[in-house]
């Protein structure tokens, strides 16, 4: 397939490029033109991270062949303004705090620019519609909408955006501009997938074809033989123990699955090739012989005596007890007792930036540029599994496009390091949205049984709960998450008599891990519903019962800790009551 001439005008500058006819526009902008401010979040037209202006109109550059833009004008985030001379939108995004991880920001800015180019007096609805094709997972949209309004006002010549937000002397007690803000609005921030090195190879993971199966044989010969393939690696090629896990005492996740797969997210083989396309093709040439095993997909099934075992030690990973006082006594003092079963489902973090990393040797040190929420942990796992001293491994956290707990665990870090270790080449790995969904950790789905008693005056007397958290195929933070649930078994309400049994259970589902608030939100689904029910039965308001029982200075929490300082619950609660106009 021959390269063809492609003429583009990008940010006012003409480019004469020679590219393959099936290249996507986003690839050409990032790899050939070299402007990496335009991001890839989904490659499906769904997230807007790749938004550019084509002849003045916002389009998803991931959904376009590059040749569609032949002879046309393109504007990317780099065409808005520079660090020295920011566009009003860029200033305003910083001033209003509309930038957090910054991964959605370039696309967001471009969509906003398209709007303001046509309409300098937008309504809130106009703005919301203009950015409706851009997803932000960190900031929410309110600050973004405010920022666009702010920029519109400046462009109308009414009011300049206050910039910079702070001077050096008035930092304490005031809003400050985020330290990494400017490069995030100019597109200069480097996220992991934005690193390119000479002679760089690309790696791809072969994921399991079964949720639970024995691996009988892996034949990589056909993949090895494909032109452009540098190496194909399986568990045998991992020099170290081939195991990782965030809990130091429960390392249970293979880097590359050897004799058994336990979920679809298990990596079975790793291909390194001259291009990502070749690596992808090679994956389909790997023959894996599986012997499927019956799987367990619910906690109910997993805890049965004769359930298939996900790990040899059985499916019960942890039973955390949190007992205090005497629940029998507590319930006997109750005027009303409510009781029910609850179920919550799995959540995906869905950070807009999928997992990515680049590994290379520099002066005898293996450097790994990668997304991470735990650089030191990742460094340790890479060192151990490659049999290298930690001093020979350096993990550099690149600007990370959202994590929410989902980027603490090892995803592709050890794999990309292994690829560089084996080939001696700089190697890049970047998961697609689909691969990210398959492989990444999730919020634990919960099965809960709750029983709560209260006196006739509304004071809680006892809570008893059995909680089962589905940690999927691997532990990750499971024990920590379930322990946290046990400790906040009844959230911000004070109860003297508590009996909480929290179980962490293995299944063949995707691995669950850390996610915002770590085990607390699931429990709140149960106890908050029951608080309402108690209030109803007692004939008091939903607000009142929470006022009666809410944590204050001096309250004792389930672990026995006495709260002394900074107990903000009642204050927060009253604000919510007021702002939500709950009593209206």
């Amino acid at each position, binding site marked *: *397939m021959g390269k*063809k001439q492609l003429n583009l005008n990008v940010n006012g500058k003409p480019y004469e490029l020679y590219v*393959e*006819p*099936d290249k*996507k526009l986003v690839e050409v902008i990032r790899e050939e033109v070299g402007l990496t401010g335009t991001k890839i979040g989904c*490659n*499906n*037209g*769904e997230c*807007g991270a790749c*938004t550019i202006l*084509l002849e003045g*109109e*916002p*389009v*998803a550059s991931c*959904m*376009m*062949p590059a*040749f*569609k833009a*032949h002879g046309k004008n393109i504007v990317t985030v780099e065409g808005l303004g520079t660090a020295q001379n920011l566009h009003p939108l860029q200033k305003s995004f910083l001033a209003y705090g509309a930038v957090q991880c910054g991964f959605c920001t370039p696309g967001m800015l471009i*969509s906003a620019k*398209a709007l303001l180019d046509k309409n300098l007096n937008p309504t809130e609805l106009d703005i919301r*519609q*203009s950015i*409706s*094709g*851009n*997803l932000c997972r960190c900031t929410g949209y309110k600050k973004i909408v405010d920022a666009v309004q702010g920029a519109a006002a400046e462009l109308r010549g009414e009011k300049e955006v206050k910039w910079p937000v702070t001077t050096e002397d008035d930092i304490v007690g005031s809003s400050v501009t985020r330290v990494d803000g400017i490069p995030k609005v100019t597109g200069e921030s480097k996220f992991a997938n934005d690193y390119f090195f000479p002679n760089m190879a690309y790696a791809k993971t072969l994921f399991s074809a079964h949720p639970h199966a024995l691996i009988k044989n892996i034949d990589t010969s056909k993949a090895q033989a494909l032109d452009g393939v540098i190496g194909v690696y399986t568990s045998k090629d991992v020099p170290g123990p081939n195991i990782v896990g965030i809990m130091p005492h429960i390392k249970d996740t293979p880097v590359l699955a050897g004799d058994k797969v336990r979920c679809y997210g298990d990596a079975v083989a790793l291909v390194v090739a001259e291009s990502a*396309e070749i690596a992808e093709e090679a994956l389909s040439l790997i023959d894996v012989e599986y012997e499927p095993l019956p799987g367990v997909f619910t906690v109910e099934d997993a805890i049965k005596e004769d359930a298939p075992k996900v790990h040899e030690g059985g499916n019960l990973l942890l039973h955390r007890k949190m007992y205090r006082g005497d629940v029998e006594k507590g319930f006997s003092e109750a005027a009303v007792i409510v009781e029910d079963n609850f179920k919550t489902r799995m959540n995906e973090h869905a950070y807009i930036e999928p997992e990515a990393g680049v590994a290379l040797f520099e002066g005898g040190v293996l450097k790994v540029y990668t997304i991470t929420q735990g650089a030191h942990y990742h460094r340790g796992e890479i060192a151990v599994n490659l049999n290298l001293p930690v001093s020979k491994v350096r993990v550099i956290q690149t600007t990370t496009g959202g994590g929410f707990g989902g980027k603490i665990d090892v995803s592709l870090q050890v794999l990309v390091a292994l690829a560089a270790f084996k080939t001696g080449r700089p190697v890049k790995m970047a998961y697609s949205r689909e691969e990210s969904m398959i492989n990444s950790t999730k919020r634990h789905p919960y099965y809960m049984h709750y029983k709560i008693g209260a006196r006739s005056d509304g004071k809680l007397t006892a809570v008893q709960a059995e909680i089962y958290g589905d940690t999927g195929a691997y532990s990750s933070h499971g024990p920590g998450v379930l322990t946290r649930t046990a400790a906040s078994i009844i959230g911000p309400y004070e109860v003297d008599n508590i009996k909480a049994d929290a179980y962490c259970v293995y299944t063949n589902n995707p691995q669950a891990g850390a996610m915002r608030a770590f085990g607390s939100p699931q429990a709140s689904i149960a106890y908050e519903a029951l608080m309402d029910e108690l209030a109803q039965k007692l004939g008091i308001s939903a607000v009142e019962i929470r006022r009666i029982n809410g944590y204050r200075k001096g309250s004792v929490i389930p672990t026995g800790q006495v709260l002394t300082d900074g107990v903000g619950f009642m204050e927060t609660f009253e604000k919510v009551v007021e702002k939500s106009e709950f009593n209206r």
Partner: protein
Amino acid sequence: MYWENYYLPETVEEVLKHLKDSNGNARIMAGGTDLMILVKNGIVKTREIVDVCNVKELNCIKEEGSLIRVGALTTHTQLAESELLKKKVKVLAKAASKVGSPQIRNAGTIGGNVVNAHSAADTAVALTALNAKARIQGAEGELEKPVSELYVEAGKSFVDPTKEIITEFVFDVPGENEATAFMRHAKRKALALPILNLALWLKTNSDKSMIEDVRIALGPMDYKPLRALETENILKGQPLTEKTIKEAQETIVKEIKPRDSFQGGASYKIEMAKVFLARAIVEAVSDLGGKIDG
């Protein structure tokens, strides 16, 4: 590797020549918002792409005598913003305004929406209610066919994009006592395929007291936008009263057979169809300056 060659012709003639020369190995791309995904997922394989985005003659919205002509390459943004459509053919402007997101509407075209043959494709549902015809050009010449007859099965169009091209859609300009409406419900306001959409064309008598004629199209119900013919029959010739609407609602409930899907449950879709039918009639009639009697 997706494809080996990429052509950017500027006239329909050149398009047809490329298709003919490639002998089935080339395929038309308009906005690419469906095709890119079909190719990526291996559902469509093609050696060559004939990108029609520069065929300017296919990008237009025109009123000619009693007809409106919409070029197949007209984007959803252009449809949604067209003053002519907003004034006279609301159903189409509104349907287009609901597609995907600004980015998708700026690239996606009405022709692609129809040829992709999805039963709830927003503009295709609107065109079905408008009784629109598609003009198709191929090596053998030109052909006009109602949009409702372009469906072979789910995802498969009568139009073969490796051989022929839809050049435009043609339908009657709604007359004095005619009005249209479009209703759509999705999980989110953007970037969400419809749980249900309903397009309506309606004609009343001159004092707006009676329905003379009506067409109702819905998706996703069938392998193609579904015409609710029984419900239409119930409405035809009836006075514009709440009783008439109620009878029509009772009929549509029996007539449609939606399926449970990721978007929503069948029983929910049926309830929504009832609601949408009433709302669409009320809206169309009130646009004509009429009202529904109690």
